[in-house]
C-alpha cells in the first residue's frame, strides 16, 4: 500500500447557520504540511466537528475554501476519508466486504480488491476475523475494521471525529498508538478532532485549540515527542500538563470585541 500525504490549506473559512445569530466559526486560516498529524482540541460546540465535516466535503462552508495539494474540496472523495465516533459498519457484510466496499464503489476488479483488502486487514491485525460477521466483533475490533475500510482507499488525509471515544481505555490507547504508527509508516495526514488532551498528545504532531463564539483557533502547540509514545513517559506527561493549561486558558478566551464589531459594520 503506498500512500502520500497532502498539504492542507484552510483559507478564511467561515460557517454560519441561518437560524443562529453568531457564526459557528469566522474566517479560520490553517496550514498543515504533508504527513502531519494535526489535533483540533476544543470544548463541545466550538465548531471543531463542523470544521472536520467541511474538510471531508460532507458540509460546505459559507465562506472561504479548503485546498488539499491545491485542489479545492467540494464534496466527499476517497482521497480524504472520514472515520466517525462509531464504526458504522454494514452488518450484512463480512469484515472483508466492509473493508472493500469503497473499492467496489470505485469499480475495482475482484482480484485487485481481494489483494488490497487483505493488506488493509493485515495492517489492522484482523487477519483471523476476515470472514467474520462484523456483529460478532468487539467495539475495538469494529473500529479497526472501519480504519481498514478507510485505509484501503489509500487516502491522502484521514479525518478522525473523536473516533475512539466510545471504546474502553485499553482498546482506545492501543488504537491511538496503532493509527499514529500506520499514518507515519504510510505517510498520510491525520486531522483529529477531540476533547481528550491525552489523545492529542499520543497521536498528534501539532495541536491547535479552538475556542470562543464564534470559534477560532486561539492557540497551537507542537507535540514534539519521539515515537512510540507512552502515557507514563515524563516527557509525555509534561507536554500533556502544558497542553491542559493552555486548553484551560483558552476556555476563558473571548474574541476581541473590536474585530467582531468591525466585521458587523462592514
Amino acid at each position: 500500500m503506498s500512500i502520500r500525504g497532502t498539504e492542507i490549506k484552510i483559507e478564511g473559512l467561515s460557517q454560519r447557520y441561518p437560524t443562529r445569530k453568531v457564526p459557528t466559526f469566522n474566517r479560520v486560516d490553517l496550514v498543515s504540511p504533508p504527513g502531519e498529524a494535526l489535533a483540533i482540541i476544543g470544548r463541545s460546540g466550538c465548531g471543531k466537528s463542523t470544521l472536520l465535516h467541511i474538510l471531508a466535503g460532507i458540509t460546505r462552508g459559507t465562506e472561504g475554501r479548503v485546498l488539499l495539494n491545491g485542489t479545492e474540496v467540494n464534496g466527499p472523495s476517497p482521497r480524504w476519508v472520514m472515520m466517525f465516533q462509531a464504526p458504522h459498519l454494514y452488518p450484512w457484510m463480512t469484515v472483508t466486504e466492509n473493508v472493500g466496499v469503497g473499492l467496489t464503489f470505485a469499480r475495482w476488479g475482484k482480484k485487485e480488491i481481494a489483494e488490497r483488502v487483505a493488506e488493509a486487514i493485515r495492517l489492522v491485525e484482523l487477519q483471523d476475523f476476515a470472514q467474520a460477521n462484523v456483529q460478532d466483533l468487539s467495539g475495538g475490533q469494529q473500529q479497526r475494521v472501519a480504519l481498514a475500510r478507510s485505509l484501503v482507499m489509500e487516502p491522502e488525509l484521514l479525518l478522525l471525529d473523536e473516533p475512539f471515544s466510545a471504546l474502553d481505555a485499553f482498546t482506545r490507547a492501543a488504537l491511538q498508538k496503532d493509527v499514529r504508527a500506520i499514518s507515519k509508516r504510510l505517510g498520510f495526514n491525520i486531522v483529529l478532532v477531540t476533547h481528550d488532551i491525552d489523545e492529542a498528545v499520543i497521536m498528534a504532531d501539532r495541536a491547535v485549540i479552538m475556542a470562543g463564539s464564534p470559534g477560532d483557533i486561539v492557540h497551537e502547540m507542537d507535540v514534539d515527542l519521539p515515537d512510540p509514545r507512552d502515557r507514563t513517559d515524563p516527557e509525555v506527561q509534561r507536554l500533556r500538563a502544558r497542553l491542559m493549561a493552555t486548553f484551560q486558558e483558552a476556555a476563558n478566551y473571548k474574541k476581541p470585541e473590536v474585530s467582531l464589531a468591525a466585521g458587523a459594520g462592514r
Partner: protein
Amino acid sequence: MNFAATPARQGGFLSLGQYALQRLAWALGGLSILAVIWLIAGQMMASSPRLANYSTFGLGPTLQAFPEMWSSGKIQSATLASGYRLGMGLLLAALIGVPLGVLVGRIKWFAAYSNSPFQFIRMISPLAWMPIAVLVFSTWDGSIVFLIAIAAVWPVLFATAAGLAKVDPAWFKVARNLGANPLQMLTKIIMPAIAFDVFSGIRLALGVAWIVLVPAEYLGVTSGLGYAIEDSRETLSYNHLTALVVTIGAIGYVLDSILVMLIKQFSWHRGGAA
C-alpha cells in the same frame, strides 16, 4: 409465525437440528389436532339426520376426493390459474410498492404529501374496486390481477418505508464518503439494509392477496381455485369443495414458508427473523 419457538432458540438450549425437529413436531402435532377435530365433526354430521346431507364435508370424503381431482387435473389447472394471478398481482405490488416505499422513507416532502392519499386509498376494501376494475380491464384476469395488486401494494409500501426509516443515517454518510454514486447507494446500501423489511412486507401482502384472490375468482372467471370452489358448491360436490379449501390452505402455508425462508436469508438482524 412461530412465536413459541423463539425463546428456546434464543436461550441456546437446543442445537439447530433439534430445533428443526421440534418445530416439525409442533407443526405435525397442531395439524393432527385440527384433523381429529375435523374427523369428529364429520362423524357427528354423518350421525345427525338433519346434517347427514353435508357429511361429505368430513375428513374422510375430502381425502378420498384428492386422487380423483388430481387425476382429472382439476387441482392442477385451478392452482395454475390462481397462481398466475397471484404471482402477477404480487409482482405488480412489489414493483410499485418498493420504489414508492423508498420514496416515502427517503424524501420527507414526498412522505408528507402522500400520507393522506395513501391512507385514504388503503382503507377502501379491495373488492369495492371490482366494478371499476371490470369496466377498466378488458379481461377478467386483468381485473383480478389489479384487485390483488391494489390490496397487496400497501403492506409492501409501508414495510419498505418503515424499514428505511430504521436505517442508520450514518450508513449513507459513510457510503458517500467512500465514493458511492446514487445507484450504488440504492443497490449496495439501501436494498440490502431493507431487504428484511421488504420481504416481511411481501409476506404480509401474500396473506392479503390470497384472501382477495378466492372471492375475486367467484365472479366472472371460469378458472382458478375460487371458481372451482364455487363450481363445487353449485354441483353439491362438498368433498371437492373441502378438498379445494385444504389445497388453498396448503398452498398458502407453503408460500408463506418460502417467504419466511427468504426473510431469514436476507435478514442481517441478530436473533433471527420472522
